[in-house]
């Protein structure tokens, strides 16, 4: 057999049917469901008198619009409350396991899946959310789908798919101190652009990727979609297996042995063909800050706001001009001179325990700058929250002046009450700096958890490599 990529292998193992035009019916091993993109899908099933094809391969959890304040007395916002109640009712009616807003296992769907051992290597995983690419960190083929496809998967446990192209991003070398997974992925997106991976599945490889923890790998795969790719992948290794071991839904005993034997075959063969390949050297990477309204608008913390007038292409120039205008920034301004209003630490990109430990290290014994109106930390799940509290991290955060919230998507997409007011500027560990993403006319700067933590203390961006 010709050498195959990791993507080729997982794809081949899930094809149920191939049409003469090349369209495939792909079997889906795991389906994660949340409250916002599923109501119409369940309604479609109901109208057509269909059942959920494989309820045991489906897991539902609320995350997008739940408040991150105390919710033990219910949800005040009537629209959110209705959407949450609808998911509860659908899960009950269709026999799907469901973690409600009071369940200790509840959290952001992409934090919950891996935590529960629902996400495993070699699987196909989908969810009505574009950051499903996160699960690719385990060597699973995972991508976001729309609501029509959610209904399709619920009804048939398959998806109609055309195979994507193979792209590889190799990150060589070792990361310098103060530079992490978030900086790697922001640098990649800056390099390839937001459409650079369109039509491709990206496999991340190289020494710097291998050196990342599972949390770091999830951060990298999470933002594949910001580079245009529906899915990102990292070949599983001993770190992956160690993470999975003992998770509630992970295999045990003989089945684990069988699984491990298979998982160890999940890598790109020597000589496998990639349609596109790029290389970065981790040793040269700085802490990165986004300056515009697209995740490709990135610059080193030591840099300045770029000048759109230097761009030759007229359309690009006008779009970057517009971005600067929206962001209220002037070309040439040093990034470290940008004052901030709010700090958001959390999201499916950076709401895991390792992220919170990093933040705690940065802020222990320090105080949030008085100019910061709100600095909030939203754990990715109830289990992350419990772990952080067991380690005493919450006490460190609160002592420093951070708000410590209940798990959910929160200010990453501002569906609940957590949002920016018009003109407010936020250092955010989330994944999108689109116009209005964190609130109407809000201004988002994407950064790593360490950078957001340091920015909270200083009230502006700082080069964390210079901190003692």
């Amino acid at each position, binding site marked *: 057999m010709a050498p195959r990529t990791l993507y080729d292998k997982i794809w081949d193992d899930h094809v149920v049917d191939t049409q003469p035009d090349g369209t495939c019916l792909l079997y889906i091993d795991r389906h994660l469901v949340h409250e916002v993109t599923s109501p119409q899908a369940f309604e479609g099933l109901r109208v057509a008198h269909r059942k959920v094809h494989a309820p045991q391969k489906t897991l539902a959890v609320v995350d997008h619009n739940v408040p991150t304040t105390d919710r033990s007395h219910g949800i005040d916002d009537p629209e959110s409350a209705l959407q949450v109640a609808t998911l509860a009712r659908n899960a009950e009616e269709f026999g799907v396991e469901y973690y409600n807003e009071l369940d200790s296992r509840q959290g952001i769907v992409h934090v919950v899946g891996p935590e529960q*051992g629902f996400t495993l290597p070699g699987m196909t995983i989908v969810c009505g959310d574009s950051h499903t690419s996160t699960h690719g960190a385990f060597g699973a083929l995972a991508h976001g789908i729309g*609501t*029509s*496809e959610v209904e399709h998967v619920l009804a048939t446990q398959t998806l109609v798919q055309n195979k994507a192209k193979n792209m590889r991003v190799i990150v060589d070398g070792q990361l310098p101190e103060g530079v992490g997974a978030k900086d790697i992925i922001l640098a990649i997106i800056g390099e390839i652009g937001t459409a650079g991976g369109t039509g491709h599945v990206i496999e991340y490889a190289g020494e710097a990727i291998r050196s990342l923890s599972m949390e770091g790998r999830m951060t990298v795969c999470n933002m594949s979609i910001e580079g245009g790719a529906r899915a990102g992948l990292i070949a599983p290794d001993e770190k992956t297996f160690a993470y999975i071991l003992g998770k509630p839904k992970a295999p045990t005993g003989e089945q684990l042995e069988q699984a491990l034997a298979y998982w160890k075959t999940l890598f790109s063969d020597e000589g496998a063909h990639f349609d596109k390949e790029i290389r970065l050297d981790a040793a040269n990477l700085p802490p990165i800050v986004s300056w515009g309204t697209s995740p490709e608008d990135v610059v080193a913390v030591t840099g300045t706001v770029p000048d759109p007038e230097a761009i030759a292409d007229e359309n690009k120039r006008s779009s970057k001009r517009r971005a600067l205008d929206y962001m209220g920034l002037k070309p040439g301004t040093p990034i470290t001179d940008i004052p901030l209003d709010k700090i958001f630490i959390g999201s499916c990109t950076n709401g895991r325990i390792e992220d919170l430990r990093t933040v705690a290290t940065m802020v222990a014994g320090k105080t949030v700058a008085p100019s910061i109106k709100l600095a909030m930390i939203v754990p990715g799940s109830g289990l992350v929250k419990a772990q952080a509290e067991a380690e005493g991290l919450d006490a460190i955060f609160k002592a420093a002046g951070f708000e410590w919230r209940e798990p959910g998507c929160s200010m990453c*997409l501002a569906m609940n009450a957590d949002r920016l007011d018009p003109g407010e500027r936020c250092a955010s560990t989330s994944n999108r700096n689109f116009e209005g993403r964190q609130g109407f*006319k809000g201004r988002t700067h994407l950064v790593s958890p360490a950078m957001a933590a340091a920015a909270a203390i200083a009230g502006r961006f700082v080069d964390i490599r210079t901190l003692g």
Partner: protein
Amino acid sequence: MQPFTRLEARACPLGLANVDTDQLIPARFMSRPRTAGYGTFLLHDLRFGPDGAPVPGFVLDDPRRAGARILVARRNFGTGSSREAAVYALVDYGIACVIAPSFGDIFASNAVKNGLLPATVTEDDAESLLAAIEAEPETPVCVDLTAQTIAAGDRAIAFAIDPVRRLQLLNGWDDIDLTLRHAAEIAAFARTRRTEAPWIVPGHGG
């Protein structure tokens, strides 16, 4: 789903690149049931100011564009979030075709499932089409999916679309019905997989 074959309508020029799905419909509207329609949320934060008043001169509200069913934009239209609500907003507003040099993958897939045609044209053709409809707002544009052509005035340009998506649109096919014709193969596949890889079935812990 209604089949899409040919559409003749006014077109709106949206001269922006990277129109992401958060702009097409801000997340805060996605808790609303769709029964009342999502059309008013389309490009909401570009169309309306902080006080809810329309932004003067925004192209969707230009009376010369009344009844427009085609949107022409620049590259990477529909990038970002997988929210199908972005497509609902376009469809409920009345848009049946978006013409752009490139689309976000998930958006294009969602579009077809709602009978909305994502027509891919070259950068040059997008620019000339934008210029043409800017100059003559009331001239209808004709999109022919069978021939894969767009006609605006005396201009005729070709567009690309994935052949499978084209067939789905032309026939108005329901994906689930088509897939369920393979029900026996799906069941056989699941059985084989369960035998060969029993670990694939989720554990019952937790």
